[in-house]
């Protein structure tokens, strides 16, 4: 029985990832900002799987609170086997094209917060010599696009950060996995025109957890995005600039 921390647990993707871990009998610590929602997600996992589920408030942008939060998780679970970072937001993207505060907030939640908490996790697992860290980044982090680069830049930063962590920790028996989902059928994509390869959060969650438990380094989910991004990354900047992808 493992103890797993899931950060950003109120998102549909995280919720179904919690289902997958709970199905395997893991004890969970779910963290998010919206405590009412978090309690609902936790109760759901408890009722469905009879799992032991703890909850705690976590604000990705409030970096100064991360140390205390981390200690609390360790205390409650009495040790930890894995951390899954799912927190992320596209809220405020429109403002982020013009306002410094907005772009900063977007980067804080999606990148700085992740880097902060995962640093604590990295040190913990490094010392124990085992465990796993998984971060949900995004295909948006593979290439800067006019439509969402503030978000993409933060996710790109997260991908690089995880890559570095992987390098650092692989020598110490700690697995770091980067998940790069494509379009997921959630609030972030709702109301937009037909998006290619739109996948349900259930499916992305299931595949992601399989990928994490297999100890893969980087994976696109669904896998087709590997090919899509290979093509998109290979378009020369000169051409890309004139396209509206």
């Amino acid at each position, binding site marked *: 029985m493992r103890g797993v921390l899931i950060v950003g647990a*109120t998102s*549909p993707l995280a919720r179904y990832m919690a289902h997958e871990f709970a199905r395997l009998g893991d004890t969970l610590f779910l963290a998010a900002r*919206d405590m*009412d*929602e978090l309690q*609902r*997600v936790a*109760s*759901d996992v408890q*009722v*469905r799987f009879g799992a032991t589920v703890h909850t705690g408030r976590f604000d990705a942008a409030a970096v100064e609170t991360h140390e205390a939060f981390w200690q609390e998780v360790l205390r409650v679970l009495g040790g930890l086997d894995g951390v899954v970072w799912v927190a992320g937001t*596209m*809220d405020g993207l429109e403002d982020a094209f013009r306002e410094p505060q907005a772009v900063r907030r977007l980067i804080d939640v999606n990148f700085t917060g992740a880097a902060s908490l995962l640093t604590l996790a990295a040190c913990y697992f490094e010392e124990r010599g085992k465990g796993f860290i998984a971060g949900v980044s995004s295909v948006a982090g593979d290439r800067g696009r006019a439509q969402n680069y503030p978000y993409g830049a933060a996710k790109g930063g997260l991908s690089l950060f995880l890559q570095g962590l992987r390098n650092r920790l692989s020598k110490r028996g700690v697995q770091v996995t980067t998940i790069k989902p494509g379009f997921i059928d*959630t*609030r972030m994509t*709702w*109301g*937009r025109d037909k998006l290619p390869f739109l996948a349900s959060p259930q499916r992305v969650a299931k595949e992601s957890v399989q990928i994490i438990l297999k100890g893969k380094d980087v994976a696109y989910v669904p896998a087709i995005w590997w090919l899509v991004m290979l093509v998109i990354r290979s378009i020369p900047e000169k051409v890309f600039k004139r396209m509206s992808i």
Partner: protein
Amino acid sequence: MTSLTLHKQITGWGRYPRALCHLYRPERVGGVIGTLQHAEPNGFLPRGLGRAYGDAALNSEGGIILMERIDRFLAFDESTGVVRCEAGVSLADIISTFLPRGWFLPVTPGTKFCTVGACVACDVHGKNHHHDGSIGNFVRSLTLLLPSGETVRCSREQNPELFYATIGGMGLTGITLEVELQLRRVDTGWMVVDYVRTRDLDETLRTFHERDEHYLYSVAWLDCVAQGRGFGRGVLMFGRHATVDNLPPARRQNPFTIPRKRDKSVPVDLPEFVLNPLSLKAFNGAYYATHPSREGVFVDYNTYFYPLDSILQWNRAYGKRGFVQWQCVLPYENGMENLTRILETAQRRHAYPFLSVLKRMGESSGGILSFPMPGYTIALDFPIRNGLFEVLNELDKIVIEAGGRLYLAKDARMSAETFHTTYPQLPRWQAVKTQVDPKGVLQSDLARRLRLMEVAK
């Protein structure tokens, strides 16, 4: 929190009528409340999985709040079988979560792909209505979001008028956020079914009355095409939950494991000529012929309760124009005569239903606009054709004269007058509606068509 809407044409399960709506799909309870902040000239309506047939879950040029993502289980008491869950939880989800622990739905409609919140809004009935009544009887309490933004709990003790107005209230008294439901204890995932084939309507009804009381579940398939001597013949299906001892020895180890069926799907609209009187005759005749009387047949719960669910999008089989289900309930008094009139009128006017199901109903749950009342309920599926609605209007008249009524969850076309005449408790319901929703924020195409908020003339 951004909350985009999707401007889209949607329909009920019958694919008639169609409506252009603004679809919201909140993923959090806070998001449901937030949705109401938007400006929608035609107000809002909660919607589950769109399995109501007609316009009950449509709101043209208004907001539709899809509840499917508000689907968390909140609490379950293993000893009493009471579950508290969010309204968007589907019946399929309830079964897959609790059947392995020995609990089943207390009442289920003929599809499991619908939400518990909507089942309460329609006060759905199942094959056990003669025995247990509708789902409202098993609802312990509800948590509603009122148009004012206020969240209230209601039950038989707490805000009872609101409770009874919401059970069967078609989503118009508030958005149900949570439901507390009493589940039913079962020993297995299997049913024991006795099939009885009858020769005519008289025998059909007689068999019903003689045997019904001994079974938890009963329903009859009627051959509505057969005329003359075979008029009203059918196949009655009496069922009960199997106990472990009933099971063949090989199944006793895993009594809740049932075979998984491969889903089939209807990929395109079938052209109209496929469902002509001849093919309907052939279909009905074949069904009748292949269902002889047999006792003690084992079937899994999916086969018994949800025969159509394994054919995805079967509603497309009725063709591009869609179909309506006409379902009425007729009091027992003169029931035989009235049923005969209905079936004969349909036949005389060449309106042959593709599917016809007859059931017996027991006491009402007390829901003010609930459909069930003691009597026979018959449901007829008609593909839409020129002239069909005139025939159905004639059938409506028979129902009015008989003192019966039509089921709102299936209706797409009855007149406001018919509705006002046949739902005598409407003023009592309107009093609650006026109180909780004075500005008429919660609306639907059904509500406007039936002039739900007008006083009868």
